[in-house]
Protein backbone atom coordinates (compact mmCIF):
# COMPACT_ATOMS: atom_id res chain seq x y z
CA UNK A 1 0.00 0.00 0.00
CA UNK A 2 2.82 2.36 0.95
CA UNK A 3 4.69 1.43 -2.23
CA UNK A 4 1.62 2.08 -4.37
CA UNK A 5 1.10 5.42 -2.64
CA UNK A 6 4.69 6.38 -3.31
CA UNK A 7 4.35 5.43 -6.99
CA UNK A 8 1.22 7.57 -7.30
CA UNK A 9 2.97 10.44 -5.54
CA UNK A 10 5.94 10.08 -7.89
CA UNK A 11 3.59 10.15 -10.91
CA UNK A 12 1.98 13.30 -9.49
CA UNK A 13 5.44 14.90 -9.20
CA UNK A 14 6.13 13.82 -12.78
CA UNK A 15 2.95 15.52 -13.95
CA UNK A 16 3.77 18.67 -11.96
CA UNK A 17 7.18 18.70 -13.63
CA UNK A 18 5.99 18.16 -17.22
CA UNK A 19 2.89 20.40 -17.23
CA UNK A 20 4.76 23.76 -17.51
CA UNK A 21 6.80 22.22 -20.34
CA UNK A 22 3.77 20.97 -22.26
CA UNK A 23 1.99 24.29 -21.74
CA UNK A 24 4.87 26.31 -23.20
CA UNK A 25 6.14 24.01 -25.99
CA UNK A 26 4.06 23.77 -29.19
CA UNK A 27 6.37 21.03 -30.47
CA UNK A 28 8.38 18.58 -28.40
CA UNK A 29 10.36 15.40 -28.84
CA UNK A 30 11.07 12.49 -26.53
CA UNK A 31 14.61 13.81 -26.00
CA UNK A 32 13.52 17.36 -25.14
CA UNK A 33 11.10 15.89 -22.57
CA UNK A 34 13.98 13.94 -21.00
CA UNK A 35 16.07 17.12 -20.86
CA UNK A 36 13.24 19.07 -19.23
CA UNK A 37 12.34 16.44 -16.64
CA UNK A 38 16.00 15.97 -15.75
CA UNK A 39 16.26 19.34 -13.95
CA UNK A 40 15.68 21.13 -17.25
CA UNK A 41 14.59 24.47 -15.77
CA UNK A 42 17.65 25.12 -13.63
CA UNK A 43 20.89 27.00 -14.16
CA UNK A 44 23.72 28.66 -12.28
CA UNK A 45 23.14 31.67 -10.05
CA UNK A 46 20.71 32.89 -7.45
CA UNK A 47 17.82 33.20 -9.91
CA UNK A 48 17.65 29.42 -10.24
CA UNK A 49 18.02 28.40 -6.60
CA UNK A 50 14.29 28.13 -5.99
CA UNK A 51 13.78 26.08 -9.16
CA UNK A 52 16.62 23.83 -8.10
CA UNK A 53 15.18 23.23 -4.66
CA UNK A 54 11.80 22.44 -6.16
CA UNK A 55 13.34 20.03 -8.65
CA UNK A 56 14.69 17.89 -5.80
CA UNK A 57 11.36 17.68 -3.92
CA UNK A 58 10.44 14.20 -5.33
CA UNK A 59 13.85 12.91 -4.29
CA UNK A 60 13.64 14.43 -0.80
CA UNK A 61 10.24 12.80 -0.25
CA UNK A 62 11.70 9.43 -1.23
CA UNK A 63 14.67 9.97 1.10
CA UNK A 64 12.28 10.73 3.97
CA UNK A 65 10.03 7.75 3.41
CA UNK A 66 12.72 5.18 2.59
CA UNK A 67 15.32 6.74 4.88
CA UNK A 68 14.27 4.10 7.40
CA UNK A 69 14.00 1.21 4.98
CA UNK A 70 16.95 -0.65 6.52
CA UNK A 71 17.09 1.29 9.74
CA UNK A 72 13.55 0.34 10.86
CA UNK A 73 14.69 -3.27 11.44
CA UNK A 74 17.06 -1.98 14.10
CA UNK A 75 14.34 -0.03 15.91
CA UNK A 76 11.65 -2.46 16.92
CA UNK A 77 12.24 -6.10 17.91
CA UNK A 78 15.71 -6.00 16.39
CA UNK A 79 17.02 -8.82 18.60
CA UNK A 80 14.18 -11.09 17.51
CA UNK A 81 14.49 -10.07 13.86
CA UNK A 82 18.23 -10.62 13.63
CA UNK A 83 18.17 -13.85 15.61
CA UNK A 84 16.31 -15.25 12.59
CA UNK A 85 18.62 -13.54 10.14
CA UNK A 86 22.16 -14.36 11.25
CA UNK A 87 24.09 -13.45 8.09
CA UNK A 88 23.69 -9.70 8.38
CA UNK A 89 25.97 -8.91 5.43
CA UNK A 90 23.98 -10.94 2.94
CA UNK A 91 20.77 -9.55 4.46
CA UNK A 92 22.14 -6.03 3.94
CA UNK A 93 23.00 -6.77 0.30
CA UNK A 94 19.50 -8.14 -0.29
CA UNK A 95 17.92 -5.08 1.30
CA UNK A 96 20.11 -2.67 -0.69
CA UNK A 97 19.08 -4.55 -3.84
CA UNK A 98 15.47 -4.08 -2.84
CA UNK A 99 16.09 -0.38 -2.15
CA UNK A 100 17.68 -0.03 -5.59
CA UNK A 101 14.61 -1.63 -7.14
CA UNK A 102 12.33 0.72 -5.22
CA UNK A 103 14.40 3.70 -6.36
CA UNK A 104 14.06 2.47 -9.93
CA UNK A 105 10.28 2.03 -9.65
CA UNK A 106 9.85 5.43 -8.03
CA UNK A 107 11.87 7.15 -10.74
CA UNK A 108 10.10 5.12 -13.46
CA UNK A 109 6.72 6.37 -12.22
CA UNK A 110 8.04 9.94 -12.39
CA UNK A 111 9.28 9.58 -15.95
CA UNK A 112 6.32 7.54 -17.18
CA UNK A 113 3.99 10.37 -16.14
CA UNK A 114 6.04 12.63 -18.43
CA UNK A 115 5.90 10.12 -21.26
CA UNK A 116 2.14 9.84 -20.81
CA UNK A 117 1.64 13.58 -21.32
CA UNK A 118 4.07 13.57 -24.25
CA UNK A 119 2.30 10.69 -25.99
CA UNK A 120 -1.10 12.36 -25.68
CA UNK A 121 -0.14 15.87 -26.64
CA UNK A 122 2.52 15.54 -29.34
CA UNK A 123 2.88 13.37 -32.47
CA UNK A 124 4.94 10.32 -31.58
CA UNK A 125 8.49 10.30 -32.95
CA UNK A 126 11.47 8.64 -31.41
CA UNK A 127 15.13 8.22 -32.35
CA UNK A 128 17.92 6.10 -30.92
CA UNK A 129 19.56 9.25 -29.50
CA UNK A 130 16.34 10.10 -27.65
CA UNK A 131 16.22 6.64 -26.09
CA UNK A 132 19.89 6.80 -25.03
CA UNK A 133 19.42 10.25 -23.52
CA UNK A 134 16.35 9.06 -21.64
CA UNK A 135 18.18 5.99 -20.33
CA UNK A 136 21.14 8.11 -19.19
CA UNK A 137 18.80 10.50 -17.37
CA UNK A 138 16.88 7.71 -15.63
CA UNK A 139 20.07 5.80 -14.68
CA UNK A 140 21.68 8.90 -13.16
CA UNK A 141 18.54 9.78 -11.20
CA UNK A 142 18.08 6.23 -9.92
CA UNK A 143 21.73 5.99 -8.82
CA UNK A 144 21.58 9.30 -6.97
CA UNK A 145 18.28 8.43 -5.32
CA UNK A 146 19.66 5.07 -4.24
CA UNK A 147 22.99 6.44 -2.98
CA UNK A 148 21.45 9.33 -1.03
CA UNK A 149 18.74 7.16 0.57
CA UNK A 150 21.28 4.51 1.50
CA UNK A 151 23.39 7.26 3.08
CA UNK A 152 20.35 8.37 5.15
CA UNK A 153 19.91 4.78 6.38
CA UNK A 154 23.59 4.35 7.26
CA UNK A 155 23.72 7.68 9.10
CA UNK A 156 20.48 6.78 10.90
CA UNK A 157 22.16 3.63 12.19
CA UNK A 158 25.00 5.66 13.65
CA UNK A 159 22.80 8.45 15.02
CA UNK A 160 19.01 8.37 14.47
CA UNK A 161 16.68 8.80 11.52
CA UNK A 162 16.15 12.53 12.10
CA UNK A 163 19.89 13.27 12.15
CA UNK A 164 20.46 10.94 9.18
CA UNK A 165 17.93 12.71 7.04
CA UNK A 166 18.89 16.15 8.34
CA UNK A 167 22.55 15.69 7.39
CA UNK A 168 21.81 14.45 3.86
CA UNK A 169 19.15 17.10 3.20
CA UNK A 170 21.48 19.76 4.60
CA UNK A 171 24.26 18.58 2.27
CA UNK A 172 21.91 18.65 -0.71
CA UNK A 173 20.88 22.22 0.08
CA UNK A 174 24.56 23.13 0.57
CA UNK A 175 25.53 21.61 -2.80
CA UNK A 176 22.73 23.55 -4.48
CA UNK A 177 23.35 26.88 -2.77
CA UNK A 178 27.05 26.87 -3.79
CA UNK A 179 25.87 27.27 -7.40
CA UNK A 180 25.09 30.81 -6.29
CA UNK A 181 28.84 31.50 -6.31
CA UNK A 182 29.25 29.97 -9.76
CA UNK A 183 27.10 32.40 -11.72
CA UNK A 184 30.10 33.78 -13.59
CA UNK A 185 31.69 30.39 -14.28
CA UNK A 186 30.64 30.13 -17.91
CA UNK A 187 29.89 33.80 -18.48
CA UNK A 188 32.79 34.30 -20.88
CA UNK A 189 32.91 30.82 -22.37
CA UNK A 190 35.03 28.09 -20.83
CA UNK A 191 36.51 28.80 -17.39
CA UNK A 192 40.08 30.08 -17.53
CA UNK A 193 42.86 30.66 -15.03
CA UNK A 194 43.53 28.64 -11.89
CA UNK A 195 40.49 30.01 -10.02
CA UNK A 196 38.21 29.28 -12.98
CA UNK A 197 39.55 25.73 -13.34
CA UNK A 198 39.13 25.08 -9.62
CA UNK A 199 35.57 26.36 -9.78
CA UNK A 200 34.95 24.14 -12.82
CA UNK A 201 36.20 21.07 -10.91
CA UNK A 202 33.95 21.96 -7.96
CA UNK A 203 31.03 22.32 -10.36
CA UNK A 204 31.75 19.05 -12.16
CA UNK A 205 32.29 16.99 -9.00
CA UNK A 206 29.26 18.42 -7.21
CA UNK A 207 26.89 15.41 -6.88
CA UNK A 208 23.88 17.58 -7.75
CA UNK A 209 25.51 18.64 -11.06
CA UNK A 210 25.23 15.03 -12.20
CA UNK A 211 21.44 15.29 -12.09
CA UNK A 212 21.15 18.16 -14.57
CA UNK A 213 20.84 16.53 -17.96
CA UNK A 214 21.37 19.67 -20.02
CA UNK A 215 24.79 20.39 -18.48
CA UNK A 216 26.23 17.11 -19.76
CA UNK A 217 28.06 16.39 -22.97
CA UNK A 218 28.18 13.26 -25.07
CA UNK A 219 30.46 11.75 -27.65
CA UNK A 220 27.36 11.03 -29.68
CA UNK A 221 26.74 14.19 -31.68
CA UNK A 222 22.95 13.82 -31.83
CA UNK A 223 22.74 13.65 -28.05
CA UNK A 224 25.32 16.39 -27.62
CA UNK A 225 23.19 18.71 -29.80
CA UNK A 226 20.28 18.32 -27.37
CA UNK A 227 22.32 19.00 -24.23
CA UNK A 228 25.75 20.52 -23.45
CA UNK A 229 24.59 24.04 -22.55
CA UNK A 230 28.08 25.22 -21.64
CA UNK A 231 30.06 23.44 -24.38
CA UNK A 232 32.39 21.72 -21.92
CA UNK A 233 33.48 18.13 -21.43
CA UNK A 234 31.08 16.64 -18.89
CA UNK A 235 30.24 13.22 -20.25
CA UNK A 236 27.17 11.24 -19.20
CA UNK A 237 29.41 8.21 -18.65
CA UNK A 238 31.39 10.23 -16.08
CA UNK A 239 28.20 10.85 -14.07
CA UNK A 240 27.07 7.24 -14.26
CA UNK A 241 30.51 6.02 -13.16
CA UNK A 242 30.79 8.67 -10.43
CA UNK A 243 27.42 7.79 -8.89
CA UNK A 244 28.01 4.05 -9.32
CA UNK A 245 31.33 4.34 -7.43
CA UNK A 246 29.64 6.49 -4.77
CA UNK A 247 26.95 3.83 -4.36
CA UNK A 248 29.56 1.06 -4.16
CA UNK A 249 31.49 2.97 -1.47
CA UNK A 250 28.27 3.45 0.50
CA UNK A 251 27.44 -0.25 0.23
CA UNK A 252 30.89 -1.18 1.56
CA UNK A 253 30.53 1.40 4.32
CA UNK A 254 27.06 0.09 5.09
CA UNK A 255 28.34 -3.49 5.44
CA UNK A 256 31.01 -2.27 7.83
CA UNK A 257 28.50 -0.26 9.89
CA UNK A 258 25.81 -2.91 9.94
CA UNK A 259 28.10 -5.64 11.23
CA UNK A 260 29.10 -3.46 14.20
CA UNK A 261 25.63 -2.43 15.37
CA UNK A 262 24.94 -3.58 18.91
CA UNK A 263 21.33 -4.73 18.89
CA UNK A 264 20.95 -4.64 22.66
CA UNK A 265 21.81 -0.94 22.94
CA UNK A 266 19.30 0.12 20.30
CA UNK A 267 16.27 1.96 21.54
CA UNK A 268 12.86 2.10 19.96
CA UNK A 269 12.08 4.93 17.65
CA UNK A 270 8.54 6.10 17.83
Amino acid at each position, binding site marked *: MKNLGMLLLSSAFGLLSILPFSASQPDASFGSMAVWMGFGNVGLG*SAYLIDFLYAIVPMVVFQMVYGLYLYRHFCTASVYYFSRCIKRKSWFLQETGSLLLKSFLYESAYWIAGLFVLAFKYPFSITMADVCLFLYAVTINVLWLFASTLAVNILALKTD*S*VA*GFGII*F*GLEVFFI*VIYNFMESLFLYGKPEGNAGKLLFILWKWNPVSQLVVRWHSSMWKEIDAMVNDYQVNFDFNFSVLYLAILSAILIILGISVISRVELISN*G*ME*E
Partner: protein
Amino acid sequence: MGILLLQIKVMLQKKEAAFCYFFMLTMILIHFFQNIFKFAGTDISRMYQPLKLRMLYEDNVFGYYVIELLPVLVVLVSGFSYLDDRKSGEDIFWIARIGGKKYFFFKYAASFVTSLIVFGGSLLMETFLYLLSFPLSSVGDPSNITRFDEVYWELISRYFFPDIYINHPYLYGVGCCVAFGLMCGVLSSFSLAISMSGIFRFRILLFLPVYLILTMTYYFKDFLKLDFDTYYGYYFYFYDTAPKNIFALILFLMVLFVISFCLVCKKINKDVFEK
Protein backbone atom coordinates in the same frame (compact mmCIF):
# COMPACT_ATOMS: atom_id res chain seq x y z
CA MET B 1 1.55 29.56 33.76
CA GLY B 2 4.41 28.02 35.71
CA ILE B 3 3.84 24.75 33.89
CA LEU B 4 3.96 26.47 30.52
CA LEU B 5 7.26 28.11 31.44
CA LEU B 6 8.62 24.79 32.63
CA GLN B 7 7.59 23.12 29.36
CA ILE B 8 9.25 25.92 27.37
CA LYS B 9 12.40 25.57 29.47
CA VAL B 10 12.50 21.81 28.88
CA MET B 11 12.00 22.30 25.12
CA LEU B 12 14.69 24.97 24.92
CA GLN B 13 17.14 22.67 26.70
CA LYS B 14 16.72 19.92 24.10
CA LYS B 15 19.58 19.46 21.67
CA GLU B 16 17.33 19.92 18.63
CA ALA B 17 16.24 23.40 19.77
CA ALA B 18 19.85 24.26 20.66
CA PHE B 19 20.99 23.08 17.22
CA CYS B 20 18.39 25.28 15.47
CA TYR B 21 19.35 28.28 17.57
CA PHE B 22 23.08 27.83 16.94
CA PHE B 23 22.45 27.22 13.26
CA MET B 24 20.57 30.53 13.03
CA LEU B 25 23.24 32.23 15.09
CA THR B 26 26.06 30.86 12.91
CA MET B 27 24.40 32.05 9.71
CA ILE B 28 23.67 35.45 11.29
CA LEU B 29 27.20 35.95 12.59
CA ILE B 30 28.98 34.85 9.40
CA HIS B 31 26.79 37.25 7.44
CA PHE B 32 27.28 40.00 10.01
CA PHE B 33 31.08 39.79 9.93
CA GLN B 34 30.99 39.61 6.14
CA ASN B 35 29.08 42.92 6.19
CA ILE B 36 31.45 44.43 8.76
CA PHE B 37 34.47 43.75 6.53
CA LYS B 38 32.61 44.76 3.37
CA PHE B 39 31.42 48.14 4.65
CA ALA B 40 34.39 49.09 6.87
CA GLY B 41 35.39 52.67 5.99
CA THR B 42 32.46 53.23 3.61
CA ASP B 43 31.14 56.78 3.49
CA ILE B 44 27.81 57.16 5.27
CA SER B 45 26.16 58.60 2.13
CA ARG B 46 26.89 55.35 0.32
CA MET B 47 25.80 53.07 3.15
CA TYR B 48 22.61 51.05 3.11
CA GLN B 49 19.94 51.14 5.74
CA PRO B 50 21.32 48.84 8.49
CA LEU B 51 18.27 46.61 8.76
CA LYS B 52 18.33 45.92 5.04
CA LEU B 53 21.77 44.36 5.47
CA ARG B 54 20.30 41.57 7.58
CA MET B 55 20.43 37.93 6.58
CA LEU B 56 16.84 37.66 5.40
CA TYR B 57 17.10 40.42 2.84
CA GLU B 58 16.48 38.85 -0.58
CA ASP B 59 19.37 37.51 -2.71
CA ASN B 60 21.57 36.61 0.21
CA VAL B 61 23.18 33.18 0.30
CA PHE B 62 22.83 32.71 4.08
CA GLY B 63 19.20 33.72 3.87
CA TYR B 64 18.73 31.07 1.19
CA TYR B 65 20.15 28.42 3.49
CA VAL B 66 17.77 29.40 6.28
CA ILE B 67 14.71 29.66 4.05
CA GLU B 68 15.36 26.42 2.20
CA LEU B 69 16.12 24.49 5.39
CA LEU B 70 13.15 26.06 7.18
CA PRO B 71 10.73 23.14 6.52
CA VAL B 72 13.18 20.93 8.38
CA LEU B 73 14.23 23.45 11.07
CA VAL B 74 10.69 24.30 12.20
CA VAL B 75 9.95 20.62 12.76
CA LEU B 76 13.28 20.01 14.45
CA VAL B 77 12.94 22.82 16.97
CA SER B 78 10.01 21.42 18.93
CA GLY B 79 8.11 18.97 16.73
CA PHE B 80 9.65 15.91 18.37
CA SER B 81 9.14 16.98 21.97
CA TYR B 82 5.97 14.94 22.47
CA LEU B 83 7.57 11.83 20.94
CA ASP B 84 10.56 12.33 23.25
CA ASP B 85 8.22 12.56 26.24
CA ARG B 86 6.44 9.39 25.21
CA LYS B 87 9.71 7.55 24.66
CA SER B 88 10.97 8.46 28.13
CA GLY B 89 7.57 8.00 29.78
CA GLU B 90 7.59 11.64 30.87
CA ASP B 91 4.11 12.19 29.41
CA ILE B 92 2.59 9.80 31.97
CA PHE B 93 4.27 11.75 34.74
CA TRP B 94 2.95 15.06 33.40
CA ILE B 95 -0.57 13.73 32.84
CA ALA B 96 -0.65 12.28 36.37
CA ARG B 97 0.51 15.60 37.75
CA ILE B 98 -1.54 18.15 35.83
CA GLY B 99 -4.06 16.14 33.81
CA GLY B 100 -4.16 15.27 30.12
CA LYS B 101 -6.03 18.36 28.96
CA LYS B 102 -3.55 20.80 30.49
CA TYR B 103 -0.55 18.74 29.44
CA PHE B 104 -1.47 18.62 25.76
CA PHE B 105 -2.53 22.26 25.58
CA PHE B 106 0.57 23.48 27.40
CA LYS B 107 2.74 21.26 25.23
CA TYR B 108 1.14 22.78 22.14
CA ALA B 109 1.52 26.33 23.44
CA ALA B 110 5.09 25.68 24.59
CA SER B 111 5.99 24.39 21.13
CA PHE B 112 4.68 27.62 19.61
CA VAL B 113 6.55 29.84 22.07
CA THR B 114 9.78 27.83 21.80
CA SER B 115 9.81 28.24 18.05
CA LEU B 116 9.03 31.94 18.44
CA ILE B 117 11.97 32.33 20.84
CA VAL B 118 14.44 30.33 18.74
CA PHE B 119 13.68 31.94 15.38
CA GLY B 120 12.24 35.30 16.36
CA GLY B 121 14.74 35.71 19.20
CA SER B 122 17.80 34.99 17.08
CA LEU B 123 16.58 37.40 14.40
CA LEU B 124 15.84 40.09 16.99
CA MET B 125 19.38 39.64 18.29
CA GLU B 126 20.64 40.13 14.74
CA THR B 127 18.54 43.30 14.43
CA PHE B 128 20.07 44.82 17.58
CA LEU B 129 23.52 43.80 16.37
CA TYR B 130 22.99 45.79 13.17
CA LEU B 131 21.43 48.72 15.00
CA LEU B 132 24.48 48.96 17.24
CA SER B 133 27.11 48.43 14.56
CA PHE B 134 25.94 50.43 11.54
CA PRO B 135 24.98 54.12 11.23
CA LEU B 136 21.26 54.60 11.73
CA SER B 137 21.15 57.71 9.56
CA SER B 138 22.04 55.82 6.37
CA VAL B 139 19.02 55.28 4.12
CA GLY B 140 20.35 53.54 0.99
CA ASP B 141 18.77 50.44 -0.50
CA PRO B 142 20.90 47.39 -1.40
CA SER B 143 19.20 47.31 -4.82
CA ASN B 144 20.93 50.69 -5.44
CA ILE B 145 17.65 52.25 -6.58
CA THR B 146 17.36 55.77 -5.19
CA ARG B 147 14.36 57.24 -3.40
CA PHE B 148 13.84 59.63 -6.32
CA ASP B 149 13.10 56.76 -8.64
CA GLU B 150 9.45 55.71 -9.06
CA VAL B 151 10.51 52.07 -9.18
CA TYR B 152 11.72 52.36 -5.58
CA TRP B 153 8.24 53.31 -4.35
CA GLU B 154 6.67 50.66 -6.54
CA LEU B 155 8.89 48.06 -4.86
CA ILE B 156 8.21 49.44 -1.38
CA SER B 157 4.47 49.16 -2.04
CA ARG B 158 4.91 45.39 -2.38
CA TYR B 159 6.11 45.01 1.21
CA PHE B 160 3.60 43.97 3.81
CA PHE B 161 2.29 47.18 5.43
CA PRO B 162 4.36 49.66 3.35
CA ASP B 163 3.05 52.64 5.37
CA ILE B 164 4.62 51.32 8.54
CA TYR B 165 7.90 50.78 6.68
CA ILE B 166 7.90 54.34 5.31
CA ASN B 167 7.04 56.02 8.63
CA HIS B 168 8.80 53.69 11.09
CA PRO B 169 11.44 51.60 9.25
CA TYR B 170 13.07 50.34 12.45
CA LEU B 171 9.80 49.35 14.04
CA TYR B 172 9.01 47.54 10.79
CA GLY B 173 12.36 45.73 11.00
CA VAL B 174 11.60 44.49 14.51
CA GLY B 175 8.05 43.53 13.47
CA CYS B 176 9.46 41.38 10.65
CA CYS B 177 11.43 39.32 13.20
CA VAL B 178 8.36 38.80 15.36
CA ALA B 179 6.23 37.87 12.31
CA PHE B 180 8.90 35.39 11.19
CA GLY B 181 8.90 33.84 14.67
CA LEU B 182 5.09 33.64 14.75
CA MET B 183 4.92 31.90 11.36
CA CYS B 184 7.59 29.42 12.47
CA GLY B 185 5.62 28.92 15.69
CA VAL B 186 2.46 27.96 13.79
CA LEU B 187 4.42 25.49 11.65
CA SER B 188 6.22 23.97 14.66
CA SER B 189 3.05 23.53 16.69
CA PHE B 190 1.39 22.04 13.60
CA SER B 191 4.11 19.38 13.38
CA LEU B 192 3.76 18.73 17.13
CA ALA B 193 -0.01 18.25 16.70
CA ILE B 194 0.68 15.80 13.85
CA SER B 195 3.04 13.86 16.14
CA MET B 196 0.30 13.73 18.80
CA SER B 197 -2.16 12.27 16.29
CA GLY B 198 0.08 9.20 15.93
CA ILE B 199 -0.24 9.10 12.14
CA PHE B 200 3.45 8.45 11.66
CA ARG B 201 5.21 5.57 13.32
CA PHE B 202 8.74 6.82 12.71
CA ARG B 203 10.18 10.18 13.65
CA ILE B 204 11.71 10.95 10.26
CA LEU B 205 8.25 10.96 8.63
CA LEU B 206 7.23 13.90 10.79
CA PHE B 207 9.18 16.12 8.39
CA LEU B 208 6.89 15.11 5.55
CA PRO B 209 3.68 17.13 6.24
CA VAL B 210 5.36 20.51 6.76
CA TYR B 211 7.82 19.92 3.91
CA LEU B 212 5.05 18.94 1.48
CA ILE B 213 2.72 21.75 2.60
CA LEU B 214 5.39 24.42 2.26
CA THR B 215 6.78 23.19 -1.04
CA MET B 216 3.41 22.56 -2.63
CA THR B 217 2.35 26.16 -1.98
CA TYR B 218 4.62 27.02 -4.93
CA TYR B 219 2.13 25.42 -7.33
CA PHE B 220 -0.95 27.19 -5.91
CA LYS B 221 -0.33 30.23 -8.09
CA ASP B 222 -0.59 28.31 -11.36
CA PHE B 223 -3.31 25.90 -10.33
CA LEU B 224 -5.60 28.46 -8.74
CA LYS B 225 -4.70 31.14 -11.35
CA LEU B 226 -3.77 33.62 -8.64
CA ASP B 227 -2.31 37.04 -9.37
CA PHE B 228 0.21 36.86 -6.52
CA ASP B 229 3.12 34.56 -5.72
CA THR B 230 2.60 31.66 -3.36
CA TYR B 231 6.17 30.41 -2.83
CA TYR B 232 6.60 30.35 0.96
CA GLY B 233 10.06 31.95 0.85
CA TYR B 234 8.65 35.25 -0.41
CA TYR B 235 6.53 35.47 2.73
CA PHE B 236 9.45 34.77 5.06
CA TYR B 237 11.94 37.23 3.55
CA PHE B 238 11.84 40.60 5.28
CA TYR B 239 11.89 42.97 2.32
CA ASP B 240 10.71 40.80 -0.50
CA THR B 241 9.30 42.59 -3.53
CA ALA B 242 7.39 39.74 -5.16
CA PRO B 243 3.60 40.31 -5.42
CA LYS B 244 2.13 38.84 -2.25
CA ASN B 245 -1.22 38.68 -0.49
CA ILE B 246 -1.42 39.10 3.27
CA PHE B 247 -4.94 37.65 3.46
CA ALA B 248 -3.79 34.46 1.74
CA LEU B 249 -0.98 34.18 4.29
CA ILE B 250 -3.32 34.71 7.22
CA LEU B 251 -5.81 32.21 5.78
CA PHE B 252 -3.02 29.66 5.29
CA LEU B 253 -1.78 30.08 8.88
CA MET B 254 -5.34 29.97 10.23
CA VAL B 255 -6.04 26.70 8.41
CA LEU B 256 -2.86 25.18 9.86
CA PHE B 257 -3.79 26.46 13.31
CA VAL B 258 -7.34 25.06 13.13
CA ILE B 259 -6.12 21.66 11.91
CA SER B 260 -3.50 21.41 14.65
CA PHE B 261 -5.97 22.60 17.30
CA CYS B 262 -8.46 19.90 16.21
CA LEU B 263 -5.72 17.26 16.35
CA VAL B 264 -4.79 18.32 19.90
CA CYS B 265 -8.48 18.24 20.96
CA LYS B 266 -8.83 14.79 19.42
CA LYS B 267 -5.79 13.62 21.35
CA ILE B 268 -7.23 14.97 24.62
CA ASN B 269 -10.43 13.01 24.12
CA LYS B 270 -8.51 9.80 23.53
CA ASP B 271 -7.35 7.51 26.29
CA VAL B 272 -3.77 8.26 27.37
CA PHE B 273 -2.60 4.75 26.55
CA GLU B 274 -4.06 4.83 23.04
CA LYS B 275 -1.59 5.76 20.30
